[in-house]
C-alpha cells in the first residue's frame, strides 16, 4: 500500500499539484441473511482501489481507479490533475487549506473476536434460530434476520508527508418481524430498524444483541400492533427511546452542523443549513439539558477512527453546549474560510469517492434522568420507540418522524400499546422543549448505516450515542387509523 501511495503522490507532484493526497483501500464485506425459513443471502465481496485528490491552480480534481499496476496508477494521478485544471477554468476563489501537521501513525479498531474468524456455519446457525423463533409466533407473515461484517484496511498519504495506516472492523446484525392484515402492515425490529445495528467492534457486538432471545418478543409485538388503536393526535408530552433519539440527533443536529452545507457545497443535492455562522456561540439550539458532541474517539461508534480521510487527528467537538450552538464539523478547506482548524470530519465511503464532511459519532450526551422516571413523572403523553419513517427539509428545520411502536402514558404509567405514531416539529423549538435526558446507564452507541450525501452518492456509516429523552408540547398524530 505504501508503495502505491508513493508512486501516485510522486506522479501528482510531477504534474505540478500544489497538494495531493491518496487513499489506498482494501475492503472486505460479508453479508448473511435468512428470510422466512429460507436461506436468503450469503455473499462476500472484496474491493480494492485507490483515490487520488489533487489541488492544481487552486482547484480540486479527483480520480478513482481499481487497477493497481504502475501505468494505471500514474495515469489516474495525471487525470486527477487534469480534472483539477478543468475545475480551475470555472473558479472564482482558489482553495485554501487550514494547516494540518503531517502525521505518521497507525490505528486499529479494538476487536475481541474477529468476525471474519467466526465460521459461516455459526453465523447461519444464529440467524436460523432467530428466524425460526419469529416464525413460530402465530400471525407473523414475514420474518428475516441478517448479519454484516466489514473489514477495511486504509492507507493515507499526502504530499505534505502524512503516512497513516488504519484497520477498521465493523459488525452489524438485526432482525425484522412483519404482521399483515387486510389494511395494516406492522413491523417490529431488534435492536434497531434500517435492517441492523452496527458498531466498530468484533463479533462480541453480535453476541450482545441476543437475536434469538428477542425474536419471539418482536414477532409478538408486530402481531399485537395490528389490533392496537391508533396513536392519539394532539399536542402532548413525548418520550423517545434511544434509537429514535439517535435518529433525531442525526437529522436535526448532525446534518445542519456540517460546514460544507453551510457554504452551499451540498445545496445541489442534500441541501443547506439553518445554522449559519453568525449563530455560533449565541444561538439557543436546545434546552440546558442538551449537549451534543461530534466525537470520533468514542468507543464502538461507526465514526471512530485514528485520523480522518485528510489525515486530521480524531477529536471530540462540542457542537451544542447546554443548549447553545457552539461549533461545526469541518474540513481543512471549509475551516480555512473562517480561520478555524479542521474538526477532523472528512470521510469517504470508499476509495472511489472524495472525502466529504460527514458525521463521526454525533452524540447526545447523557443526562441525569431515567426512562422509568420520565414515564413516572408524565401525567399524559406517549412513549415512542424504533424508527419507521423519517423526513426533514433541506435546511433541517421542518421534520416529521414515525415510529414502529408506541405506548400511551397516563398518570405516570404505560397504559396501552398504540400504532402508526407520528410526531412533527421544528428543530430548535423541539430541542428547547426537552426537559429530561436519561443517564449513562441507559446511554448506548447506535450505528446508522444508511447516511446518504454527496454526488456521486456516498452512503456513510456513522455513530450516535443517545439515551431516552422527553419533550413537552409536541405535535403527535397517527398516519392512518
Amino acid at each position, binding site marked *: 500500500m505504501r508503495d502505491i501511495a508513493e508512486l501516485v503522490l510522486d506522479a501528482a507532484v510531477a504534474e505540478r499539484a500544489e497538494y495531493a493526497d491518496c487513499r489506498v483501500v482494501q475492503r472486505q464485506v460479508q453479508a448473511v441473511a435468512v428470510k422466512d425459513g*429460507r436461506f436468503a443471502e450469503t455473499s462476500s465481496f472484496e474491493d480494492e*482501489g485507490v483515490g487520488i485528490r489533487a489541488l492544481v491552480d487552486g482547484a480540486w*480534481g*479527483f*480520480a*478513482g481507479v481499481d*487497477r493497481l499496476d504502475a501505468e494505471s496508477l500514474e495515469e489516474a494521478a495525471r487525470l486527477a490533475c487534469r480534472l483539477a485544471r478543468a475545475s480551475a477554468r470555472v473558479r472564482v476563489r482558489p482553495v485554501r487549506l487550514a494547516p494540518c501537521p503531517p502525521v505518521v501513525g497507525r490505528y486499529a479498531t479494538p476487536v475481541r473476536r474477529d468476525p471474519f474468524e467466526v465460521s459461516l456455519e455459526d453465523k447461519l446457525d444464529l440467524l436460523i434460530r432467530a428466524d425460526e423463533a419469529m416464525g413460530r409466533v402465530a400471525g407473523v407473515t414475514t420474518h428475516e434476520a441478517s448479519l454484516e461484517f466489514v473489514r477495511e484496511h486504509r492507507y493515507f498519504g499526502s504530499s505534505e508527508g502524512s503516512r497513516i495506516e488504519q484497520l477498521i472492523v465493523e459488525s452489524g446484525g438485526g432482525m425484522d418481524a412483519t404482521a399483515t392484515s387486510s389494511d395494516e402492515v406492522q413491523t417490529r425490529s431488534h435492536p434497531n430498524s434500517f435492517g441492523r445495528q452496527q458498531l466498530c467492534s468484533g463479533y462480541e457486538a453480535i453476541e450482545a444483541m441476543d437475536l434469538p432471545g428477542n425474536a419471539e418478543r418482536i414477532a409478538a409485538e408486530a402481531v399485537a400492533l395490528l389490533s392496537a388503536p391508533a396513536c392519539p393526535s394532539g399536542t402532548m408530552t413525548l418520550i423517545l427511546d434511544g434509537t429514535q433519539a439517535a435518529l433525531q440527533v442525526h437529522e436535526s443536529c448532525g446534518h445542519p452542523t456540517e460546514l460544507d452545507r453551510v457554504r*452551499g457545497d451540498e445545496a445541489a443535492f442534500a441541501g443547506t443549513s439553518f445554522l449559519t455562522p453568525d449563530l455560533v456561540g449565541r444561538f439557543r439550539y436546545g434546552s440546558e439539558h442538551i449537549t451534543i458532541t461530534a466525537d470520533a474517539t468514542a468507543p464502538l461508534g461507526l465514526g471512530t477512527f485514528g485520523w480522518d480521510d485528510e489525515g486530521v487527528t480524531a477529536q471530540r467537538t462540542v457542537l451544542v453546549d447546554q443548549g447553545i450552538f457552539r461549533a461545526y464539523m469541518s474540513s481543512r478547506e471549509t475551516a480555512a474560510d473562517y480561520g478555524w482548524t479542521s474538526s477532523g470530519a472528512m470521510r469517504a465511503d470508499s476509495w472511489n469517492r472524495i472525502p466529504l464532511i460527514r458525521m463521526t459519532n454525533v452524540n447526545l450526551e447523557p443526562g441525569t434522568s431515567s426512562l422509568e422516571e420520565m414515564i413516572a413523572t408524565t401525567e399524559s403523553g406517549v412513549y415512542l420507540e424504533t424508527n419507521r419513517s423519517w423526513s426533514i427539509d433541506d435546511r433541517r428545520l421542518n421534520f416529521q418522524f414515525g415510529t414502529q411502536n408506541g405506548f400511551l402514558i397516563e398518570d405516570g404509567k404505560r397504559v396501552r400499546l398504540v400504532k402508526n405514531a407520528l410526531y412533527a416539529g421544528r428543530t430548535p423549538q423541539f430541542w428547547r422543549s426537552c426537559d429530561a435526558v436519561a443517564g449513562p446507564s441507559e446511554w448506548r452507541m447506535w450505528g446508522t448505516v444508511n447516511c446518504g450525501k454527496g*454526488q456521486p452518492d456516498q452512503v456513510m456509516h456513522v455513530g450516535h450515542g443517545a439515551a431516552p429523552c422527553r419533550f413537552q408540547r409536541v405535535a403527535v398524530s397517527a398516519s392512518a387509523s
Partner: protein
Amino acid sequence: MPVPARGGFGVGLVSASPAELLSIADSVLEAAGRDSAEVAVVEQQHSLTRFARNQIHQNVTETSRRIRLRVVAADRVGVAEVRGEVEGATERLVTTAEAARLLAPAGEVTPLPKPDAGPDGPVAFSRATAESTPEWRASQVRAIARPVAAAGFEAFGVVETSVTQTVVVSGTGTRRRAESSTASMTCLTRGEAGWGYAARHHSDVNRLDAEALAHEAVQACGRNQGATSLEPGVYPVVLAPYAVAELVAHLADLGFSAQAHQERRSFMRPGERLMSERLTVVDDAADLASMPFPFDDEGVSTRGVSCVEEGVCRGFVHDSATALRENVPSTGHALPMPNTYGPWARHLVVSPGDRSLEDLLVDCGTGLYVTRLWYVRDVHPLHTIITGMTRDGTFLIDQGRLGRPVRDLRFTQSIVEALAEIRGVGRDRSIELDEGERALLVPAVCLGHFAFTS
C-alpha cells in the same frame, strides 16, 4: 452546447472492451466448473463535475469493475463478489462462493434462468457521452453559471456522464452484454430570497442544452423570491414532472413488485380501479424515449409490464424467484440474486395526456404549483401514505394562473388517493431520475387534492 466531434477515447482512464469483459466472465464461469453458475461483470466509468456558487468545487472520475459469481447446486446457493483488480480474483471468487454454497442450508433454491433468446437491445447509449472530457464538462458549467450570474443569482449543480458495460453469462447458456450511457445536468439557482431548479437527463450529452437549463432555473428563481407562508391544508395541485417522478417512483416501490404482493405488502388489487382512468403506468425497458436497457441482473430479457392501466391495477414485475412461486415466467426485473428485496420496476413510463402546462393551471383553478418533492419517505406503506417537503419553487395558482411564491410545505398524503383524482395529464414528458438513479418518463399532472400538513 453539443459535444464537439473528436476521435479517440476521451474519458481518461482506459476501460476494457465488451469482448474483454465477456472473456473475463467466461473464464470465471469455466473456473467455477458448474452448469449452474452465473457470472455478472459490470464495468463503469463515471465522471461528475459539481459546482457551487458559480464555480467548480468537486470534479471526479472513477473507473470500477465488479465481478459477481452465483453458484447454485444441490438445493444450495452461494455468492461472491470482487470489485477492482483483486489479485487472484477468479480463484477467490470460486472458492468463496463455493464455500458459502456448501455451508448454506439445503432448501428451496431458485434455479438459474434459461436463456430466452431476447435481443441485446435497445440500449440507451451514446458515443458522444462516452467520449466527453473534463474540459467539456467545465465548458458546460461555464455555460450554466454565466447566465445565472448575469441574472444576479448563484448556480449550484452537476454535469455528469457515465458509461457502463454489463455482461451476464451462465452455465445454462445465458450470454448477454450491453453498453449503456447516461448524462445529466442539474442547476439550482439561489437569489437573495429564494431558489430555482432545472434538470435534464438523457443517454446522449448532445441532447442536453446547458443554456436552456440555465434559462429555466433563472426564470424559476426569479419567480420564487420572497415567498410568504400559506396555511397548511388540502389544495388542488399541479405537479411538475420533477415532482411526479418522485410520486410514481414511490408508488412503484410500494406495490409493483410481485414479492410485495406475495408478502401482502402491496396496495395493488389486480383488476380494481383504485386510481383515475387518466393514469396509465407501464414498466417499459424498450421505450426509446426513456433509457432503454434489455435485460436484468440475471440476464433475463426485461418485458413490458402494464402496472396501472387507466387507473386499474394490473400486473406485477417478477424476478425468477417470485415467478417460480406463481409458476409464471420472470418479467426480467431481477436485482442481483438471491436477495431479500425482490424484483424492481426500474423503467417506469407514465402515459401522456393532452394538456399543456397552461391547460393544467386552468384545470387546477385555485391551488398550488409544486416544482419538486424532497426527502420523501413512506409513512404507511399499505395505504401508500408518504411524507416529504416541497422544494425550489412552490407557487399559488390563482384562477388558472401562476401566482406568488409560498414557503415550502410538508405534505403527508396517500399516493393512491391523490392519483384517484387526476384533473389533467400533461402532453409533454421528460426523463427524470429518482433517488435510486432510476429513469422515469413522466408528464406534469393536475391533482384534485393534496394534503399539506405543516
